[in-house]
């Protein structure tokens, strides 16, 4: 009996393209697995991990959200170097609402996500017409400026920050709130970018004149993408404020701008899933390396370089293409 190898994705793609005609559970599993694995993972991880790694998971999810927020902007043609602006604005808004007005965190967080997102959008509205590196420069500068503003004017606690902010009711609410939001953001925005609306956003980054020429106001669409992105960033900031029970100048730190970019680039930009995967690799990696001590950043940097040199298109794109190349042995008559 002769055998040959056959790619398994093609038949399945053909059968699931227009009319759903999948017969076997194995074929369905092949299609569903890439969605099920992260879903089940997000659900189970908080239960499996110990208290220390649960804390790490919180920060993984927060950086994953920031990376998703960066990726949406980047796909619309706006390369931001200032995710810290979104993060910090959400953090200060939620902190202020809780500290001065005594709002419950579960109310303050959603409101801070939207209000923080709005404030960031208004901040960046004047520079929306700038392209490429000019837009990036402005996003880099604004959070650094805001730190000095807080320091100089001593508003919102000045250099001391605001401490004694209420925490979320329980550890489990904390964990499942952030995992739930991450799941919703990952799948929801992936779907959005795959729709006709997402096509317009990607079109703007590809060739904005052509999109303008189709009677579409690109600045209005860029504003929408900016608002979506800054709301995601503001949510992660607002969330972290109630985890740390503190908000202060560090929320505008460069880490919140750079690490999401590293996560998106290592994971594979343009997919959102890559950004999430990148955060799930880089943040734990940085925790593991903590044991090494002084040379931690050096090793971390080396890892980054290795990833980028070995898989320049990103880990997600690599894994995706390998997944599509799975083969099986079939009998040849």
């Amino acid at each position, binding site marked *: 009996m002769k055998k040959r190898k056959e790619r398994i994705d093609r038949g399945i793609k053909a059968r699931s393209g227009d009319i759903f005609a999948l017969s076997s559970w194995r074929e369905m599993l092949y299609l569903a697995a890439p969605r099920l694995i992260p879903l089940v993972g997000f659900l189970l991880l908080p239960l499996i991990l110990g208290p220390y790694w649960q804390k790490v998971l919180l920060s993984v999810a927060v950086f994953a959200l920031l990376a998703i927020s960066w990726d949406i902007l980047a796909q619309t043609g706006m390369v931001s170097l200032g995710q810290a602006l979104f993060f910090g604005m959400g953090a200060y808004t939620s902190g202020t609402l809780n500290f001065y007005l005594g709002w419950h965190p579960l109310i303050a967080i959603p409101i801070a996500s939207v209000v923080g997102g709005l404030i960031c959008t208004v901040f960046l509205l004047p520079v929306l017409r700038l392209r490429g590196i000019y837009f990036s420069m402005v996003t880099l500068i604004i959070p650094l400026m805001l730190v000095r503003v807080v320091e100089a004017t001593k508003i919102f606690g000045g250099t001391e920050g605001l401490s004694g902010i209420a925490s979320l009711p329980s550890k489990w609410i904390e964990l499942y709130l952030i995992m739930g939001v991450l799941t919703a953001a990952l799948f929801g925005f992936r779907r959005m970018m795959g*729709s*006709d*609306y997402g*096509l*317009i956003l*990607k*079109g703007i980054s*590809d*060739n904005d*004149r*052509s*999109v*303008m*020429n*189709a*009677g*579409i*106001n*690109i600045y209005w669409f860029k504003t929408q993408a900016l608002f979506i992105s800054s709301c995601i960033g503001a949510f992660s900031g607002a969330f972290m404020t109630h985890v740390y029970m503190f908000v202060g100048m560090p929320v505008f730190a460069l880490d919140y701008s750079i690490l999401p970019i590293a996560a998106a680039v290592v994971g594979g930009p343009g997919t959102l899933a890559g950004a999430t995967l990148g955060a799930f690799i880089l943040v734990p990696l940085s925790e593991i390396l903590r044991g090494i001590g002084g040379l931690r950043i050096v090793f971390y940097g080396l890892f980054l370089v290795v990833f980028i040199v070995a898989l320049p298109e990103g880990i997600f794109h690599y894994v995706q293409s390998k997944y599509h190349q799975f083969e099986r042995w079939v009998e040849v008559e």
Partner: protein
Amino acid sequence: MSTASLLKASGLYKNFGGVQAITNLSFELSQGELLGLIGPNGSGKTTAVNLITGFVKPTEGEIHYRGRNITAWPPYKVVRLGIARTFQMVKPFYQLPAYKNMIIPLYSPRVKQRVGGKFGDRDAVALDLLEEVGFERDSFVAYKTASVLPQGYLKRLELAKAIALQPDLFILDELFSGLSLAEVAGIVPIIEKLRQNGKTIIMIEHRLKELFRIADRILVLNYGEKIAEGKADTVMESDVVKKAYLGSE
């Protein structure tokens, strides 16, 4: 609103720094006409189109469309009034299939009003429109990524994107350049069909022979100035035009 004129440009000037790209350009265009815009390289043809469509703001002068002053309107607003253009350099979204390229014009508010397309339906509309410009339905060519399509199809795609916007005035910027005679012969009937439907067309062309066959009127630019206007044969007979094209002596 003046009776017959659809588009009216009066006293347009445009300088880029010290370069005088357009000098005192005035012309009128009536409904259903096909105007050929010709001139040597760098004579300001594309700048003239950019002024009308709002990609470039004039230094001086006014543009009226259906009696409305549209001078310095942003491009997306100009399109919504019913003026669609194609670009000389085709820039499709190369990584997308041809029919997905059509989604962007189909998403525009002008089309939404008229077709009411929703997510999903647009694909079908896109395939219909592409068939109109010669993407044979049974050949899968509409499903191919734009990056593998030959120039002839890319130009047709560019034209289909303009048709999708359902404009009344088409501005076609060197649609025939870079195409073989056979490919041009394939596109001419599409343009003739647009004319039968009462559409007004401005064509910028270097392929004079093909242009003269279909144009009602020719406008010749040289160094940003209008040097001649009229029927094709009379225009080409005039000394200034000969001089502009062939040089003095």
